[in-house]
């Protein structure tokens, strides 16, 4: 695939990073993503296979980090699994061979734009964007929420660290919303 040059969700060759005041927004293009949904009545098989393969399957509203696989809960008996893109670009195939027919697996890598948010405290930013009670939820909290009409997944890694997955086609609108809120908050 050497001949095809990928573009980032923001239409660039390289990932974008933006800083405003204490906040840094970093586009992450190095994350491979796939959905894993248990087949009906196969949760036990999936759990066993996942454990063996080192794929975490955390409980509701939770993200669990691991190497190489991290994952967060998105729906009943359904997760998004993350892995490094460089080694796991074919994440769906890799997971299929690891988890067998106990799960339905779908590549999601390019369905999303990923932004890492970093600041001392993200609460002033996020309270202008979504209804998540960011200061109150624990680290590792993962939820779907809405920011400026866009459905996004928000994963809290700390009071000043979060990962955001937004719809890839609206990457520019989402970044604009983040920057606008940042100028308002900081």
């Amino acid at each position, binding site marked *: 695939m050497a001949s095809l*040059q990928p*573009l980032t969700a923001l239409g660039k060759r390289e990932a974008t990073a933006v800083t405003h005041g204490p906040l840094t927004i970093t586009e992450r293009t190095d994350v491979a993503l796939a959905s894993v949904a248990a087949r009906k009545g196969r949760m036990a098989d999936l759990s066993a296979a996942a454990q063996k393969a080192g794929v975490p399957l955390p409980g509701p509203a939770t993200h669990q980090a691991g190497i190489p696989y991290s994952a967060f809960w998105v729906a009943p008996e359904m997760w998004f699994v993350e892995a490094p893109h460089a080694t796991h670009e074919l994440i769906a195939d890799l997971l299929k061979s690891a988890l067998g027919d106990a799960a339905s697996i779908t590549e999601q890598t390019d*369905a999303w734009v990923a932004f890492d948010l970093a600041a001392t405290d993200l609460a002033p930013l996020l309270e*202008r964007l979504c209804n998540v009670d960011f200061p109150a939820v624990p680290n590792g909290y993962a939820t779907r929420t809405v920011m400026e009409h866009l459905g996004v997944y928000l994963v809290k890694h700390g009071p000043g660290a979060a990962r955001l997955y937004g719809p890839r086609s609206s990457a520019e609108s989402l970044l604009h919303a983040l920057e606008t809120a940042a100028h*308002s908050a900081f």
Partner: protein
Amino acid sequence: MTQSHRIDGGLIDRTKTLRFTFDGIPYQGHPGDTLASALLANGVRLMGRSFKYHRPRGPISAGSEEPNALVELRTGARQEPNTRATVAELFDGLEANSQNRWPSLRFDAMGINDKLSAFFAAGFYYKTFMWPKSFWEKLYEPIIRRAAGLGSVTREEDPDAYDKGFLHCDLLVIGAGPAGLMAALTAGRAGKRVILADEDFRMGGRLNAETLAVGDASGADWAAAVLAELAAMPNLRLMTRTTVIGAFDHGIYGAVERVSDHLPTPAKGKPRQILWRIYAGKAILSGGATERPIAFENNDRPGIMLAGALRAYANRWGVKVGERVAVFTNNDDGIRTALDLRAKGVDVVAVIDSRPVGDLLPGIRHLHGAEVIDTSGKLGLKTITVRQSNGATETIAVDALGVSGGWNPNVNIHSHHRSRPVYDAGIAAFVPGPEGPPGLLVAGAAAGQMSTHAALKTGRDAAIAALDLGTAPDLPQAEDAPVRISPLWFVHHGKGRAWIDQQNDVTVKDVKLAKQENFTSVEHLKRYTTLGMATDQGKTGNVIGLAIMAELTGRSIPETGTTIYRPPYTPVAMGALAGRSRGKEFKPFRLTPSHHWAKEQGAIFVEVGNWLRTQWVPKQGETEWRQSVDREVLATRKSVGICDVTTLGKIDVQGTDAGAFLDRVYANTFSTLPVGKCRYGLMLREDGIVFDDGTTARMGEHEYVMTTTTANAVTVFRHLEFCRQCLWPEMDVQLISTTEAWAQFSVAGPNARKLLEKVVDQDISDAAFPYMGAGNITVCGGLRARLFRISFSGELAYEIAVPTRYGDALLREMLARGAEFDPVVYGTESLGVMRVEKGHVAGGELNGQSTALNMGLGKMVSKKKDSIGMVLSQREGLTDENGYRLVGVKPVDPNGKLTAGSHFLEKGAAPVAANDGGWLTSKVYSPHLGHDIALGYLKGGDKKIGQRMRAVNLLAGLDTEVEIISPHMFDPEGVRLRG
């Protein structure tokens, strides 16, 4: 001009001077001033003209309840009408103007309305302007709108931004007076997350306006000390300039924070205001009380104010409103004003106390059993006429009069869920009813607890009760005076007008008229007289109005009842409600993978939902859109064209029951589809109407990829989840959207295969990849991709998909490697032309009213299996032999024009509904055929092929003779697409 009426004391910063203008005249004030306090300090009492009669008016209050002193702030694009001068925070350079006057505030030509007041009584709209009806819009309304009304809005776009935000807390405290401060302190010390919100720019409520002590400090100092403690708590959020505007369901409160209203312009990037949605576990309403006036003749002159406001201007702002002041009261609180003013050195010439007996104030002329019956002073108060207990009248020269008719608890937010306030005769006012919004407690004056001690105590107790706290701070010492009031609503005297609702110019006479015409219920009274329907929602006037109605009808006040309040508590700027959603930020954009390439080419984009799709791609020299579209279509049909079709919804359907599931959601069958093939699917709603269509491919034994229309991607997914979870929970089916994961291009035209062979790594010959084939492939040396041999254009066509990040590169690669075929990139217009030529249905035909039968696809609805909509699609009304059928349409004269929306008429038939035969759903110009063509729904259309009719559009002035033809207008045998 000097600040002639500024006196000592107050919570203003005299070390700094702020310059401002009112109606162009320069004045000075200090930080801590409102526009009203600063104007009053400069001896300006006249601030506006009234709504209907254009009466000269000044402020009557010192707070957000103000009905009169409505002004325009700022100029140019930031000009804002109807701003209450009593809460507008003064800043250096503020430009304020009076409104509803011409040519000037002091001489207002429309003051003639006052002389004609007999014609403007309650209900005058309904009576006077009823007839003739046609005059209303053209004559009456414009005149009335010019004569009556408030400020004017700027015609320019608001240059400022407004934010929305979300906050969470255990306890929301609404109002930071003594009750609110004590509640916040109690909850804050217990470690609870507390939001304390107050509309004022300085918290403390009435404590800032009184001389009463709390503990061993002044009330204002005690408040400042508590606020300092609260500010240091990480669990406490103090929100000044923040008005809680409403109580919504389940502990959600709305609040508007005026972030930058007190600044000349917002700082860069900062919003003017923020509309907060507050999720509160519990809330305490400690919003205090509002004083109400007493109605008497000519009680609306500038200089006549609420007594508590006179006191507030003196104590908080160091302003004496007049040199010679009188107080008219029916309760002890009015007495407090007289004493405070005297202590400030103001000449209090008389206290007119309507109560017949009582202690006499030492050193002040205190008249018991007396009433103010009239006043004089054209542009400001000059005299009052007092009727003493013995009936004697006396005219007293004063330039300010404080009126106190008692205090109304601010029950507004408590009644937002329709809780009716109840009358408390002890304080002669309505207090919150028993059933307010769940989780909302009331404390302090808002609960009818009028003393400082009672406010502190109920504030603390409410916090304890709301949060079930074990410990609480001690209460500081504070006054605990009882409310002593003898209700007096209006002075029975004379024939002149006595104002109740000054903003809507409602008088006692209007209430009498309402009674006379039998509008005696409070709800009728409100609507007949407009009492309480102005922007202040009658905060000062409502209770007087209904009390007068009670008196006139001989009913008690509880029997008469009260209207209730709705959100918002005070007016909210439209901008705050819109937030960032305006202009280009109205909604997010969705960009296709080919967007950047298309932009480089100067493509024209069209909004399709949130998507920006390429509409056409003009080449140099093309000046008309048709030139581009015709070229794109012809080039595609001649060689090959590429179109970005990523926007179509894509849903992965997996699971051992995936095929059976699709059989139930599609009208046709999918379980029999072989792996590696795709099929057109028709999805019905349960009522039998076509919901959506698309091509679904079987990628594996238990793995399908469904395609939806761009418009229905979200609703189809929602529907599938409904079917999966609610109807057939036993099925093994998993769903996930992959719309954005894959960049998908249609490659169509006789050379489509040849072009694709340049990028696809596998054999895609007709034998290896036949019509309706589908499969996983690789491109450009190993990149995973998907290929579907499907056609919307009628050409040999494929859709090829790669991970979205490679979409841009794949397009460029196809164009480069396939250059020998002169590939063209086409947009949605050409897509539309080619699909109409082929008779494929799309938006105009999938209109939410049409069945498969209408579309000529009736045979697709399998009756051998249960599927959504199958049963009801067989309803009698939907299976009419002569119902609408999809037909193709062409003009008999090739130069004849067609347009979508035209109606089918038989030749010679009049263009009336009875003769309507159906309508044209989509129209394009076919460059291949060289004339307009259209699709349409025609009654019994399948039997009318070959007939001639007319397509008539009276709006467009078109009446075209047409021939009804098969909708498959191009290559009906499908030779090309199987090529």
